């Protein structure tokens, strides 16, 4: 290497000047640096804020018990773990969360594995359709299942119109209507499609030759499954297990709807009530606990994946397994698979829809049907306008579109920009930092992240205004939460394209913007569409992330449905959920149309 001449001060200056001018000429560097600054604030600041909140005295407590506002204190840590109310706000919810997660995950895993095996590898009737239909529950907002359950099994314990069974004259017992049993079942039915997707894709990736070799050695179908296929699925099983547990822990809607009437609290609902009662210290501690559990599960997952890596056989040639003939079992297994579809997707939809069309629940006489809850004309037993006339619904609909829409567009653009900077600046600090920081939000459950944003943006800090109560805050928090998926897909899209198409344009005289417009954007068109529609779908169904950040006027469809439930307007809540479901389905169809991609790859997140 040419060494610097130390006596020549000028040459050093020139070198620095060159370095800077070179970097400034490089668009990826400029984009990267700006992203670093923005993301540092949006990702790191909330985390710091929540840690500091957990150990500093709130203004309220400072006034009540003396002491300085913001002084260091263990008060909230003690309150959560050792105080007299710790049992109520932490230990019991923790126990309940573990119970529910355990059963929900177990059921989801079993359903996912069985259905994936049936659909990918056997000749059950309608396997082609089941592959798509069985992921529908994943597209419904998580409160759909719970409200459908409530509409069906609700008893007189809580206010509002009676449940369908009740109106038939059968009063469901409390244990069937509320609490751990329905929560576990509803969560399992909401989350099994995730297991189904992962198992299906794992099954189709197993190299068919591994099975063929076994059959040449005399193994029958049963032996091939027990000795080869199932053992090869162990790594996937572990991943599904851990990720489903993480999901169930972070779910808010199901325990809120089905747990609250029975005073059955999970960690997520406990966190929510602390937010409602303005206990920001306790909120911070609970959010940290939730995040730590999330991080732990993720670390275990990474460890498991790494440990089993040598086990994973890549190189399935895309040859499909010959579907095995089920013989006598064909009819029963078919009935089972379609029954699950009925319970998890069609059933809730029909129940929700029926409930909004019947003036009195459970009365199937023709005259009882009508559009009253939609049009607002002659609504029985409440002084509420209908769906089409309610200003609240219209506002929520508008907000949902604005918030999910802007968040998804920003997310898509950010994802590609991050991808650009990360891939074009390989080996630099910026690249590594962007990669890591855009992944960080993945570690925090939505509720915890929202709590952090609440504490960060409740008041103005420096040049950043207080955003609480504004739509921008909701957009912002959505963008940051979905960033891990957006940046991951942005990075992989940029990797796939590689630098050459852009360089070929550079050589022919195309400047930066020209390259983006004529070369990169068209090449990334489908990646961009996916990167926008996926967050949009997630955003439309999002509840746990936004439920504690909305204020009157910034309600979304999802939170509005919870408000309706709170007031006992079950039908309106159900109608709202139906609207969300329809919007999401349409988006999914557009996505399929535009990209022809497999949903499995997209909805994995």
């Amino acid at each position, binding site marked *: *290497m*040419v060494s610097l001449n130390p006596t020549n001060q000028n*040459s050093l200056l*020139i*070198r620095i*000047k*060159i370095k800077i*001018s*070179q970097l400034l*000429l490089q668009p990826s560097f400029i984009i990267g640096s700006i992203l670093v600054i923005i993301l540092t604030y949006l990702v790191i600041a909330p985390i710091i804020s929540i840690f500091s909140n957990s150990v500093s005295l709130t203004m309220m407590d400072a006034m009540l018990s003396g002491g300085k506002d913001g002084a260091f204190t263990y008060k909230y840590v003690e309150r959560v773990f050792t105080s007299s109310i710790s049992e109520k706000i932490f230990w019991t919810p923790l126990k309940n969360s573990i119970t529910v997660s355990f059963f929900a995950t177990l059921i989801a895993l079993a359903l996912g594995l069985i259905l994936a095996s049936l659909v990918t590898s056997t000749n059950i009737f309608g396997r082609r359709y089941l592959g798509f239909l069985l992921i529908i529950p994943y597209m419904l907002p998580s409160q759909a299942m719970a409200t459908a359950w409530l509409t069906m099994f609700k008893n007189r314990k809580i206010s509002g119109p009676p449940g369908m069974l009740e109106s038939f004259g059968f009063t469901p017992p409390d244990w069937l209507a509320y609490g751990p049993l329905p929560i576990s079942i509803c969560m399992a039915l909401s989350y099994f499609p995730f297991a189904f997707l992962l198992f299906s894709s794992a099954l189709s990736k197993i190299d068919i030759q591994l099975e063929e070799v076994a059959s040449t050695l005399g193994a029958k179908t049963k032996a091939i499954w027990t000795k080869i296929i199932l053992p090869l699925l162990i790594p996937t099983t572990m991943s599904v297990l851990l990720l489903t547990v993480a999901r169930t822990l972070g779910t808010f809607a199901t325990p809120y709807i089905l747990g609250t009437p029975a005073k059955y609290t999970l960690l997520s609902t406990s966190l929510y009530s602390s937010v409602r009662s303005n206990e920001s210290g306790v909120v911070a501690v609970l959010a940290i606990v939730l995040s730590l559990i999330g991080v732990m599960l993720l670390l275990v997952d990474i460890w498991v994946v790494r440990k089993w890596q040598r086990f994973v056989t890549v190189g399935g040639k895309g040859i499909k397994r010959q579907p095995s003939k089920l013989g006598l079992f064909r009819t029963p297994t078919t009935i089972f698979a379609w029954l699950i579809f009925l319970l998890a997707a069609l059933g809730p939809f029909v129940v929700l829809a029926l409930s909004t069309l019947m003036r009195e629940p459970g009365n199937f006489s023709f005259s009882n049907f009508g559009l009253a809850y939609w049009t607002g004309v002659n609504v029985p037993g409440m002084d509420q306008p209908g769906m089409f006339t309610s200003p609240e619904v219209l506002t929520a609909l508008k907000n949902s579109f604005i918030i999910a829409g802007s968040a998804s567009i920003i997310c898509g653009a950010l994802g590609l920009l991050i991808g650009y900077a990360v891939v074009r600046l390989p*080996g630099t600090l910026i690249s590594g930092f962007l990669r890591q920081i855009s992944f960080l939000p993945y570690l925090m459950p939505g509720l915890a992240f929202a709590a952090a944003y609440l504490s960060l943006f409740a008041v103005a800090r420096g040049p950043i205004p207080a955003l609480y109560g504004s739509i921008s805050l909701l957009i912002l928090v959505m963008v940051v939460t979905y960033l891990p998926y957006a940046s991951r897909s942005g990075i992989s899209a940029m990797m796939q394209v590689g*630098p*050459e*198409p852009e*360089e*070929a*344009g*550079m*050589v*022919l*005289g*195309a*400047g930066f913007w*020209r390259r983006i417009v*004529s*070369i990169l954007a*068209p*090449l990334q*068109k489908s990646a961009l569409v996916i990167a926008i529609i996926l967050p949009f779908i997630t955003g439309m169904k999002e509840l746990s992330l936004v439920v504690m950040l909305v204020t009157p006027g910034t309600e979304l469809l999802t939170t509005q449905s919870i408000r309706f439930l709170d007031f006992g307007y079950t039908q309106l809540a159900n109608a709202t959920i139906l609207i969300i479901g329809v919007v999401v389905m349409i988006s999914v169809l557009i996505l399929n149309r535009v990209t022809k991609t497999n949903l499995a790859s997209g909805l994995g997140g």
Partner: protein
Amino acid sequence: MSEIKLNSLVKNFGGNSLAVDNLSVTFPSGEFVCLLGPSGCGKTTTLRMIAGLERPDSGEIFCGDQTYFSSNTGEYLKTEKRNLGLMFQSYALWPHMTVFQNIVFGLDMKNESSSEKDKRFEELEKLFQLKNLKNRYPSELSGGQQQRVALARMLAVNPNLLLLDEPLSNLDSNLRLEMRAELKRLHQTLGCTIVFVTHDQMEAMTLATSIAVMNKGIIEQLAKPMEIYKNPKSLFVAKFVGSPQMNIVDFNDGEQLASSLLNKTKFDKNNVKTLGIRPESIKLTSKDNGDINGTIETIQPTGADWIVGLNISGKSIFAISSDQPPGNENDIIGLSFKLDGLHTFDRNDLKLEAD
């Protein structure tokens, strides 16, 4: 039509060795220069620095009287402004543009009128036999057609300098011969400077008007192809160019052969570390009639000549004989060495010159 001058170029990717290590060389104007070297020696990096796609850590690059890059003055000319043609190993045709759109892209960048674009496209269409392919997308073309589209796209803007990075390595052997001829013809008609990267010494020998042999980030020798072959300046160049390879021998490994070769030269044993003899400079005669005796191990007739594997007291070498070898496998025959293919190298693996 301009010469390319590289001065003390250094490029480090952060590993413990430099990708390009203080490289200085001048490629004369109008030459067809082949940058020849084993994979990983820094050829692509050098080419990309000339194109401006990679920035040197230090050094200077000039093209004619234009400064492309200089770490002394801080000058740097953007790739977009260098007016050069670059062809990637993968061709990098844009999959979302038709053949026509790909080819006229450079003209678009210069805001040429559409009649000008059509005119230029027709010329190139003829030159590269792209009739009827105008509206196809790259995925609908064969490998050879893609190659020709990439060439046409590069030439559409009349670049001063053409840079090609192993453009023939994705083609099958027939097509490769055809494209070699095409490139040679192109160079003769255009007359512009071409820098062509390859790791295939045969390709370099047949195509180039100058070969630059590269090793570990530096250029070991720049010369006309026959000069490289006849007078390699270093052991590396001697070994890299020629097929079958030059026979290499030293005093630890083939003492007897080495001494016999050394006797033919006027160098002292103390100065010489390694000796090399080209296979075609070994003449096969009957036993005891040559400089040394050896046993025939293998005979591979190629049609035009015979490649004969020989063993001289444990050391295996190859000879090429244009006559039927004077014996069969396991026979002992005589070998005599011709001076023109005999090379001696010193302790630094540099050629010892007979003054």
